């Protein structure tokens, strides 16, 4: 069972001025999804209504937003708890300042991925989409079962065109290259 550590150690340490990137908040304002982050007045509606925050000792959307606006870029992007959000959008719907909180978390994730932090499960899904067009590898058994259940054949995944249209998206290409290298290494 994969587990996220119960406490977020880095955020428990005193803040050093050298950690602060005062421009981080403007970087976020310029990105689609986190444009309105500076509107946050730390009311805590997002955290108190978050189903994950109820069950996790570490995932707190309000804290992540506060850390980001303070300029604690590394702490936010390296935080394991970023990946706990289930994207239920309750926070987005209830934010009194109309911040798309779940989208802000998504922006954090995208930036974390760019800086090299990506959970395996997401790597696998991208690999599968690039290979087959589907987010999961559909087992042969399932495809046979479709027939016995009277279901039409599985639509084609159109993977070739998927690879074509995703061309130029750096992060996807780098994951694809990594995968290619691994496959080549296996062959050798």
């Amino acid at each position, binding site marked *: 069972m994969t587990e996220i550590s119960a406490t977020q150690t880095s955020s428990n340490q005193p803040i050093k001025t050298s950690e602060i990137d005062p421009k981080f908040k403007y970087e976020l304002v310029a990105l689609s999804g986190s444009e309105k982050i500076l509107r946050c007045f730390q009311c805590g509606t997002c955290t108190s209504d978050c189903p*994950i925050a109820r069950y996790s000792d570490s995932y707190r959307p309000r804290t992540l937003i506060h850390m980001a606006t303070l300029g604690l870029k590394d702490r936010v992007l390296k935080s394991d708890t970023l990946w706990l959000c289930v994207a239920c959008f309750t926070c987005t719907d209830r934010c009194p300042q109309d911040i798309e909180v779940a989208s802000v978390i998504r922006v954090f994730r995208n930036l974390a991925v760019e800086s090299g932090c990506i959970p395996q499960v997401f790597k696998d899904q991208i690999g599968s989409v690039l290979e087959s067009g589907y987010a999961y590898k559909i087992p042969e058994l399932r495809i046979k079962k479709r027939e016995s259940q009277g279901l039409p054949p599985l639509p084609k995944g159109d993977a070739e065109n998927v690879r074509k249209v995703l061309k130029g998206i750096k992060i996807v290409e780098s994951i694809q290259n990594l995968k290619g290298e691994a496959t080549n290494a296996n062959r050798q």
Partner: protein
Amino acid sequence: MPTDNKYLFFLGCAIPYRVSSYEVSSRKILAKLGVELVELPEFNCCGLPLDPVSHEAMLVLAAKNLALAEQQDLNILTLCPGCAGTLKKVNKILKEDSQLKQQVNEHLKEAKLEFKGTTETKHLLQFLKEEIGVDKIKAAVTKPLTGLKVAEHNGCHVLRPKQYIGFDDPEDPQTLKMLIEATGATCLDYVDETECCGAPSVGISDKVALSLARDKLNHIKDVQAQALITICPFCHIMYDTNELRIEKLFNEVYGIPVLHYPQLLGLALGLKPEELAFSDLRVNPSRLIEQVTETLNTQ
């Protein structure tokens, strides 16, 4: 805007991967209700799973699917709230932002496709309410499930975020309840009804995910619901596939069958459990089926 009474059936990935009973039962009830589905010859993942990694990749994949549907001049019907939410959201975003649309279309050009924004997507729930109508469904019921008491679980992406989805009230959703009541069954209220099932955090923290589902099952057990009704493949996996696991992990006993809404409606439309893939369910539904059959025999 396509007006034909035909709909493009967007299957998605999760249903063929793990939850074919949802597809089997949905196709059966849609056929009973006279809906003509057009099969997609090809499609790709809606894009949602890529959003955490690259928002741009998500937009491109979703737009690619929408462009394929536009070529056929048909609206999309999908069973998966994740797919429905993504396709709806991206359609709206790109229609409102011409610069972003142009940027995405640059990518689609590589596959000789173009997103225009002429197709609408509906999830099964919205489709049944708006395209068929609760009254018509009620009228089609031949075996009302009188006496059966169930609970519902909506699935977040059918309702949220409301500014993109624009369907029902996410804080007090009524559609699934009305559709359940249309079968003759009673839909019970319970605590935290609109709360997420936790499925997306499986694989990140199983303990958090299963804790969410356990509390929901506890609330459902408290009101003595005889079954839980879902309309999402992920929620179904969370409650049905994982129910035994949750029982073991937290030392609980539920035995609450988890039915796809089309399975419940199918029974009320006179279809047999074996036609509705009841045998695929992990939590044994035989007691429930016995009760339904007895009620029907005494009617």
